[in-house]
């Protein structure tokens, strides 16, 4: 039964991924006028224009283009970069580790920061500690990461000289990008943790536990924490997209050589096949992360299995 639900959820992700790929395909056709003009300028030699048109399959009917694009995706042919003529997939794969590293450290940082903060705020609900924690949370959601990054850089790299300004080849170069990327998530999660913890503390189950004389500490950490975990995990998953999207900006700020920076470089050079590949891979990661969170929710909360 449980296995069947899991299988259904996994199968449901397939049409979503296909839809994502379709939308990405049509992105290229949003370029106003002739993409070849946009790429080469109107003064280019006719022979060059024709070569590019064939390279992008623009000489074929659109359905054929779509078909060959999809079959290319499955066979690992994601097109060729217009700038350095290397396969798009190859260029993407070499950038995946940097983004994965940054995203994982940021996520870890966010969780490590948010859960104690949410707990602290809930434990002192309505008091000054709560106000302080929620004030941090409000600042965290409101501060744009493309400003937080430069400000951190200004203070800790330029002013104090403690950390490297940008790049990823020095020790400690991960710290500022991870804080920049993780802050918004920490803010949202701590808020969620606070409210779900408080809600869990007012549930019948915790009241019963209290009636049995179980220590307050144990109720908070064993009973209520488990009840509060489900909405927090769900929120965590929903925010993964924001983290992946935020990585595009954070990597640009810190010159962090991951997928996000690759996307922006591709956009600046009008390397459309590479832009498509980057957007597709990031969106696919997001779909898979959501799927994983969905399954985690099913595992944590048996009530969801009845849907």
């Amino acid at each position, binding site marked *: 039964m449980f296995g069947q639900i899991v299988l259904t959820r996994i199968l449901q992700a397939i*049409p*979503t*991924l296909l*839809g*994502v790929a*379709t*939308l*990405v395909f049509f*992105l*290229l056709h*949003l*370029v*106003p006028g002739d993409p070849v003009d*946009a790429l080469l300028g109107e003064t280019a030699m006719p022979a060059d224009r024709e070569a590019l048109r064939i390279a992008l399959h623009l000489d074929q009917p659109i359905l054929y283009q779509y078909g060959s694009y999809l079959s290319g995706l499955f066979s690992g042919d994601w097109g060729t970069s217009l700038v350095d003529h290397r396969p798009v997939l190859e260029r993407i794969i070499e950038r995946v580790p940097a983004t994965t590293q940054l995203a994982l450290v940021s996520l870890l940082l966010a969780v490590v920061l948010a859960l104690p903060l949410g707990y602290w705020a809930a434990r002192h609900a309505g008091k000054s500690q709560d106000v302080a924690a929620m004030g941090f949370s*409000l*600042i965290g*959601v*409101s*501060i*744009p990461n*493309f*400003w937080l990054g*430069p*400000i951190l*850089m*200004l203070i800790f790299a*330029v002013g104090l000289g403690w950390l490297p300004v940008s790049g990823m080849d020095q020790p400690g170069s991960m710290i500022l990008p991870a804080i920049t990327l993780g802050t918004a998530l920490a803010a949202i999660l701590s808020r969620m943790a606070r409210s779900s913890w408080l809600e869990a503390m007012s549930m019948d189950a915790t009241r019963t536990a209290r009636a049995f004389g179980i220590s307050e500490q144990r109720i908070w950490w064993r009973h209520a924490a488990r009840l509060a975990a489900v909405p927090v995990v769900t929120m965590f998953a929903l925010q993964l*997209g*924001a983290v*992946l*999207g*935020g990585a*595009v*900006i954070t990597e*640009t*700020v810190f010159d962090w050589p991951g997928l996000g920076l690759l*996307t*922006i470089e591709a*956009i*600046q050079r009008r390397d*459309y096949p590479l*832009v498509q590949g980057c*957007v597709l891979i*990031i*969106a696919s990661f*997001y*779909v898979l992360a*959501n799927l994983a969170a969905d399954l985690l929710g099913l595992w944590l909360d048996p009530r969801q299995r009845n849907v």
Partner: protein
Amino acid sequence: MSKSSLKLVLFCLSLPVLVLLLALFNGLDGHAIDLDAVLTGMNSSHLLGTDALGRDVLARLSEGLQLSLSVGITVVLLGGMIGISIGMLAGWIGGWLDALLMRFADIVLSFPGILLAIALAAMLGPGVENLVLALVAVGWVGFARLSRVQVLSFKSVPFVEAAIANGSSAPYIAIRHLLPNIAAPLLIEASFGLAAVIIGEAGLSFLGVGVQPPDASLGTMIREGTRLMLVSPALVIWPGLVLFSLVMAVNLLGDALRDKLDVRMDSK
């Protein structure tokens, strides 16, 4: 709204309002290049100093702020109208149309929002119109899903059934009976949406796919300021501070709105 959160909103709004008023009184042109007065720092003629081309920072902040607000409001209004229409239609008619529209909404939501906006803006090309288009293309979905769910929950309520029975047309029911009843959650969505769009506009402009030089956006100002951070840190601090206070004020208003409307729902 509680007194303390009202005070906080006013505090957050004071910087943006001050920028707008001072720029108005100063009356300087944010596009006037003066290569004899480059990166001056604060002085009496340029209250917040000048940028690398000798342009008045205060005037450019005010221009960027106005752009943030006008893009933000336009996108929320357009996205709201499109999203609410689609969502209500899907919820009301149901069947294959509902399935089709919501499937499409799901696909749009499968992208990190900012990433899709970046890709769309990059493909459409630079300029404010395309920036608005890209943000609307991402922003309508939240409104659509919310209004669909709301319409579904009101479809079988007696007063709506009565309106159907006495032969009211669907558009009439939608506007007279449904919209006023689903307005509260949509308003909350709109206020948080506004904050997201304001950050989104500045973010896209920061990345170079939104507002183009010489026009001022808080995002492009942060981008230019970052390059000159070592020489003149004020150039990156001011536009971000203005943006941050504006977004914080909008978020606080959204919070207050949510608390207020939730309370009313709870007390029945």
